[in-house]
């Protein structure tokens, strides 16, 4: 054994020496090392996707959304209190419950402000995964979402609270289905896809998937860019009115966050939507073209802040619920979204990762962990539904507990009580845009700082926000 080890060490040493010599002596243009700067130049992900496009000639369906971190959540911090305001005593329970659509005839009451995002059966996830998501949501007292699909009986049975997407495929848009929901979300877009059409080829559609979607054999599943029969604002208003009258449950609108969001939201307000879901550019998907994920939309952080300010300006921030989604993966990000004005948060990617949890050992090293959860996954039947549900329930519980700790240190008794004043920004542009104090200077010096900055470099505008006095 020692002889073999000595032989191997000697061989490795010779190979390494030769590799270094070659790297040093070869012309750079012929040098293997050229791969390092060129890969760094285009980025390893871009390199892989260039090669995939070249091999297929079609857009590559990148799973789980953009890898870019477009929302600078790390530049916001919560402000703990000690004497200025006292922290919440530890024996006081923090209220974590939320009502979605408080003005609806039958509002949706959830125990925690975290919801499971719309991820469809078939188009994205396996039946086992959908059932596990529903079970976990029920255990935690929250709701799960059908995604753009039909109504799967097993999901309906496992979910105490189910939000259904009235979708551009038309698969849930039948009164027999949508009257069995606890809330209806009219899905006109998503962060990772904008409002583009999508197609699932018939070859990827199995029997149960066909049944849930009501497809004939051999038929592709098509999501159109527009909702069938909604071609004007008036059509949309009529649809909302009809769904509200027929069901009594909260009816909301889900869109991809966009620079036009105030205009889009005004139409939703005119139509008397009960809630609005904004899916930021970081939103996930089962698979979509990288251009739609990286280059289209508005980052979640800015979208949430603008939407909340718009609802406040319109005087309806207590009446219309704002649900934030898109790349929110830590409890800190989720709570910051709430402090900026969201009433609740949808989680998708993080929920799937939590659900798989320690079961990744079943798929690694030969398949990615998501192979256990997606509809087309080779290992989807190896997902343990009850274990998955428990994993996700634990994750939700842990996230909410972490959020409660921030409520305690900021002196609040409800997660919904946190607001912009509980945050400080570490970037002057962010501070101005979000109407949050800048952490570099004292509260009473904010106006002077921005005024001086404007005078000295013309970068910032002096705001109207009055400095707070302690």
């Amino acid at each position, binding site marked *: 054994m020692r002889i073999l080890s000595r032989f191997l060490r000697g061989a490795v040493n010779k190979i390494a020496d030769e590799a270094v010599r070659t790297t040093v002596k070869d012309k750079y243009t012929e040098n293997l090392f050229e791969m390092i700067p060129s890969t760094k130049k285009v980025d390893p992900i871009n390199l892989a996707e260039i090669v995939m496009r070249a091999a297929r000639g079609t857009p590559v369906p990148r799973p789980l959304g953009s890898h870019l971190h477009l929302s600078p959540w790390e530049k916001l911090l919560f402000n703990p209190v000690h004497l200025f305001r006292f922290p919440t005593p530890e*024996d006081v*329970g923090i*209220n*974590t*419950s939320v009502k979605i659509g408080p003005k609806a005839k039958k509002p949706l*009451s*959830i*125990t*925690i402000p975290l919801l499971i995002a719309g991820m469809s059966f078939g188009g994205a996830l396996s039946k086992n995964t959908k059932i596990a998501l529903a079970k976990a949501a029920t*255990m*935690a*007292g929250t709701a799960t979402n059908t995604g753009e699909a039909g109504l799967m009986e097993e999901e309906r049975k496992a979910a105490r609270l189910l939000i259904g997407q009235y979708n551009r495929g038309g698969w849930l848009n039948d009164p027999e289905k949508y009257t069995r929901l606890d809330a209806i979300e009219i899905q006109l877009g998503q962060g990772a896809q904008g409002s583009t059409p999508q197609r699932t080829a018939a070859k990827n559609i199995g029997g149960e998937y066909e049944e849930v979607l009501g497809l004939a054999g051999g038929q592709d599943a098509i999501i159109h860019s527009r909702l069938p029969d909604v071609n004007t604002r008036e059509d949309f208003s009529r649809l909302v009115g009809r769904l509200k009258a027929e069901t009594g449950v909260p009816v909301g609108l889900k869109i991809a966050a966009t620079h036009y969001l105030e205009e889009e939201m005004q139409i939703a307000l005119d139509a008397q939507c009960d809630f609005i879901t904004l899916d930021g550019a970081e939103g996930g998907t089962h698979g979509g073209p990288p251009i739609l994920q990286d280059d289209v939309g508005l980052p979640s952080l800015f979208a949430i802040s603008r939407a909340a300010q718009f609802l406040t300006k319109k005087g309806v921030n207590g009446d219309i619920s704002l649900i934030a989604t898109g790349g929110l993966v830590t409890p800190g990000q989720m709570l910051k979204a709430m402090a900026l004005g969201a009433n609740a948060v949808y989680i998708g990617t993080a929920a799937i990762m939590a659900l798989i949890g320690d079961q990744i050992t079943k798929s690694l090293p030969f398949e990615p962990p998501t192979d256990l959860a997606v509809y087309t996954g080779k290992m989807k039947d190896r997902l343990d539904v009850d274990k998955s549900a428990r994993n996700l*329930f*634990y994750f939700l*519980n842990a996230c*909410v*507990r972490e959020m409660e700790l921030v409520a305690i240190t900021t002196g609040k008794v409800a997660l919904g009580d946190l607001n912009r004043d509980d945050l400080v920004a570490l970037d002057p542009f962010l501070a101005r845009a979000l109407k949050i104090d800048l952490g570099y200077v004292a509260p009473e010096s904010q106006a002077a700082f921005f005024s001086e900055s404007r005078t000295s470099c013309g970068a910032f505008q002096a705001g109207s926000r009055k400095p707070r006095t302690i």
Partner: protein
Amino acid sequence: MKITEVLILINLSDLSKTLMAFHSDLNRIQTIAGTLSQMDRQHYNTLTRYNDERLAGIAVAEQNSSRQLGEIKQLCLAMAQKIDDIQQTMGGK
């Protein structure tokens, strides 16, 4: 006064009494929910003292129950407030 008006007044009187009873019951439910919620929080603290995976699992379930009871408390408070509003509106008429 017409008979129909008298009947309406009697019914309104009954309704007022019923609403008062509901209000009282809701207050009792919210008190119980709050107390149980507090107890479940204490159970969580107790159960997490031990380095035992099964007890830790029960502790998480207790913490979650505490939140759900907290939600019931909030719902009861909101309903009691709604009944107050209805009674005030009826009294105003």
